[in-house]
């Protein structure tokens, strides 16, 4: 595929045939001495799909990636590509391409020599290597920098070369280990878009490790939120945000207001909950709760609103900050600190006593109290 790169304009993404390979992580457990870094993780990545492993540092996401790459041996479980186990293969024979956080370009080789490295290791004829190097550098728009050493390239350029090097060997699986962490913010978005485009165009199956939820949201088809060695939820970004599966996911992805309360009664598809703050709200939930059980309602900032109605609970508005087209209300309610996200029109309300209610139609998440950390 590298031999004939198609101009993007003539070949829209949706026409790209899925040429990727399927990756299955099946019950993988990794232990460092006494510490279990990855706890029985099962995760499938569809051909051509990009899945982000998102989580705080130490959650096991990088360990999982390195296990797929073959740098770490799993204590239990299997890694399969297209249904064939690759656990016993060395990294170089797994058909994985890796872009490291530090890019790991060979400093004593030019960009072209770096890209050629994997092709030469495969003992391809020289003419083929030259052609594929040119195509790979062109794919990342670095053809003008072929003879430059990494030190003579900017961070973003080094990253493109690292991507070209990983893609030149036509890997079944592309592994990206925090590839944007070393770049400044302005450059990051451009490169994220470009890498996403290239990944789609090549139809390569990709796993992206990141601790940046915006990056995971914008780049991945699905994200796997990890915590303490486990995958807590695997779903498309919007679903993770709208319907977090666990209290951890609700807290880690996006901003959440935690409102403790008690189940009053079943109510249609959900429950009526008496909030400690002094209001009764109806929340949909598929989970089973007993009447009287302690729960926490996790509401997004845009799911709460200042209200005049009597069913709202009393609180105090500390300040309102404009954020682009929106307004962030900073609110205090007893020991709780709440953030509300509202459309900005007219003058912001004056600080002081307010009432807060759940926006009609909002579907906050509901978790048992002990689960909330």
């Amino acid at each position: 595929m590298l031999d004939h790169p198609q101009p993007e304009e003539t070949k829209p993404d949706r026409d790209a045939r899925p040429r990727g390979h399927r990756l299955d992580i099946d019950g993988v457990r990794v232990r460092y001495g006494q510490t279990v870094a990855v706890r029985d993780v099962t995760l499938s990545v569809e051909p051509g799909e990009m899945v982000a492993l998102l989580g705080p540092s130490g959650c096991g996401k990088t360990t999982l990636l390195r296990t797929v790459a073959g740098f770490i041996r799993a204590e239990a479980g299997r890694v399969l590509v297209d249904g064939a186990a690759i656990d016993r293969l060395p990294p170089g024979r797994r058909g994985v391409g890796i872009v490291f956080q530090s890019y790991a370009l060979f400093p004593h080789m030019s960009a072209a020599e770096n890209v050629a490295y994997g092709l030469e290791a495969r003992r391809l004829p020289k003419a083929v290597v030259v052609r594929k190097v040119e195509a790979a550098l062109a794919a990342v728009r670095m053809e003008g920098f072929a003879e430059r050493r990494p030190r003579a390239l900017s961070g973003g350029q080094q990253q493109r070369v690292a991507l070209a090097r990983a893609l030149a060997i036509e890997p079944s699986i592309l592994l990206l280990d925090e590839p944007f962490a070393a770049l400044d913010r302005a450059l990051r978005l451009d490169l994220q878009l470009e890498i996403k485009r290239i990944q789609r165009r090549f139809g390569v199956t990709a796993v992206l490790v990141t601790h940046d939820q915006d990056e995971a949201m914008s780049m991945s088809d699905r994200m796997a939120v990890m915590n303490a060695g486990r995958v807590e939820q695997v779903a498309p970004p919007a679903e993770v945000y709208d319907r977090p599966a666990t209290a951890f996911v609700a807290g880690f992805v996006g901003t959440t207001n935690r409102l403790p309360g008690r189940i009053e009664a079943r109510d249609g598809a959900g429950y009526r909950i008496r909030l400690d703050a002094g209001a009764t709200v109806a929340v949909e939930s598929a989970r089973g709760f007993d009447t009287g059980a302690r729960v926490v309602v996790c509401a997004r900032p845009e799911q709460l609103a200042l209200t005049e109605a009597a069913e709202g609970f009393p609180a105090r508005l500390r300040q309102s900050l404009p954020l682009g087209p929106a307004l962030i209300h900073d609110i205090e309610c007893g020991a709780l600190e709440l953030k509300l996200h509202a459309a900005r029109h007219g003058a912001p309300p004056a600080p002081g006593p307010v009432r807060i209610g759940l926006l009609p139609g909002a579907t906050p998440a509901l978790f048992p109290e002990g689960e909330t950390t």
Partner: protein
Amino acid sequence: MHRFTGADRALALLILALAGVGFLILVGPVVVVLVTSFTSSRALQFPPPGFTLQWYRDLFDAERSAQIHVAAGNSLLVAVLTAVVATSLSTAAALAIARSRATWSKVAEGAFMAPLVLPGIAFGLAALMFFSWLRQPPSLALLVAGHAMIAAPFALRTVGASAAGLDPALLESSAALGAGPWRTFRRVTLPLIMPGVAAGAFLAFVSSLDNVPVSLFLSSAQTDMLPIRLWGMMETALDVRVAAASGVLVALAFVLLLAMDRAVGLARRMSG
């Protein structure tokens, strides 16, 4: 602004004086021997009454200095082989030690560095007894073995310093791109640690070339070594050719140092 006080100035003068004394002690003898090697006198005498190149002519005379030439040939051969053996072994050891965080690697490093603090005479005697116990007659191979032991710590240090600065992600990158261990070593590891390897080889070469204690015990009439031969000449005749030979050795070391600096500087630029 900081103002220099009298005490500051006194301290600066003291440091300057100490540096001057150090410089004099380090460089003075070399200058004396170099100047003496051009003396027109028949004895080792400083300052010389006049200057001539006669002793260098004598030194390079194939007939009159045949024994010196044999010894010099032996010494150079042993020094080259020592540099090769010590640097190869040290490179292997340094890479393994740099990669490992296990306790044994610290123990191994200590063991490899031990010859540095071991008294040369004691090691020379021990080596002689050990090799006689193994019923090995004196040979150049034994000299190389003995010298390599002494030279290895130098190479281990310099290669170790280079290897410690090697980004493990580069080696993982190479492996992930399909390169085997040998290709990774040849194409990635070795070029990047080359400054350390070159410096190590240079130090091993020089330490072998002027080694006396080990050569004293392990050399024989057939495997005469240059420093031993020169010492013998000094003892018997105060031969001025010794000064000339010293001059040649100093010049050789100086040229090698410049060559190595160029090579290492080049390697640094290559890796940059």
